[in-house]
């Protein structure tokens, strides 16, 4: 029995070390907003300056919220994936143009294509702080009632989409269809 003591001690120390190691991994940082409602906001629409958007506009069906900016090179590299998602799914696509110059942002969407149904202008990063954003890109998946179900820090590519979003989205969509049926 005592023979296994050193091995047991080693495993204990290894687990402790690993725990400490992963605690420091900020990309795995769980958002404290998961399973909480999307924060209240009111903002101007990027392409239609006369229009204001608020939390109400994100309710009714599952939403993908993507934090982007023209100063963010990774946003450019994930852009095609967002265009694909827009084509493949019936998600409501909402962009948050984070700490950016609106004119540059508009011409950027002009050149690269616009995957979003709505674009929230967050020039001073206020909404970003409410969402715990510390860089771009970051993405949030909301259910049809505006509850945050998933947060992705970094770009969305095909692999990430398949692994992190698709299974969750299937769940959300079936829950959404169920609710529609009940209403009818």
């Amino acid at each position, binding site marked *: 029995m005592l023979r296994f003591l050193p091995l047991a001690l080693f495993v204990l120390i290894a687990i402790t070390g690993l725990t400490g190691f992963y605690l*420091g991994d900020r990309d795995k940082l769980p958002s*404290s907003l998961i399973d909480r409602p999307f924060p209240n906001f009111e903002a101007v629409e990027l392409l239609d300056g006369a229009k204001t958007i608020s939390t109400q506009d994100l309710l009714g069906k599952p939403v993908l919220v993507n934090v982007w900016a023209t100063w963010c090179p990774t946003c450019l590299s994930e852009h095609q994936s967002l265009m694909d998602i827009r084509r493949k799914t019936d998600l409501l696509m909402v962009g948050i143009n984070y700490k950016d110059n609106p004119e540059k942002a508009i011409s950027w969407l002009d050149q690269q294509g616009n995957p979003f149904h709505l674009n929230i202008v967050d020039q001073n990063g206020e909404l970003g702080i409410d969402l715990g954003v510390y860089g771009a890109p970051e993405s949030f998946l909301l259910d049809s009632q505006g509850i945050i179900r998933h947060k992705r820090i970094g770009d969305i590519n095909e692999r990430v989409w398949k692994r992190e979003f698709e299974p969750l989205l299937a769940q959300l969509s079936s829950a959404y269809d169920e609710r529609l049926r009940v209403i009818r």
Partner: protein
Amino acid sequence: MAILSKLILLLLLVAVQVEASSSSEIMEFDSESDRNRYSKLISELRCPKCMNTNLAGSDAPISKDLKSKVYNLITQDGMTDEQIIAYMRERYGDFVLYDPPLDGAAMIIWLVPVGLVLLAISILGLAFTRIRTAKNSVLSEEKKTEMQALLDDV
């Protein structure tokens, strides 16, 4: 020698100057206590973008935003320190605290080393008492005669 000490004094003054200008920047406060609260909070809150820097020591854009947020929460919203910490924690999680609460995974990395040290001490203690009792042990009469017999044989 006199020149050298003057030079050291000058360097010290410059250092103090730099320190003073970096911590207060251009913030204006109603009271000295608000200023102190601000410096204390930005030294306790961690820059979420950085690996190991507090807000005070970071020039990352997000740190600047969070510093001005802390400033506004103190001067405009009149929040207490606890409210501001809760505000940041709600948004950025425990990561943003330099002194996170002792629960879950944090508990493991604090308690296991302490446990290991206690275990080591008790094993050593046990070993020492065993050595000491072995030294002081008295031979029984039976063993003594047996030993005497062996010695006599020699």
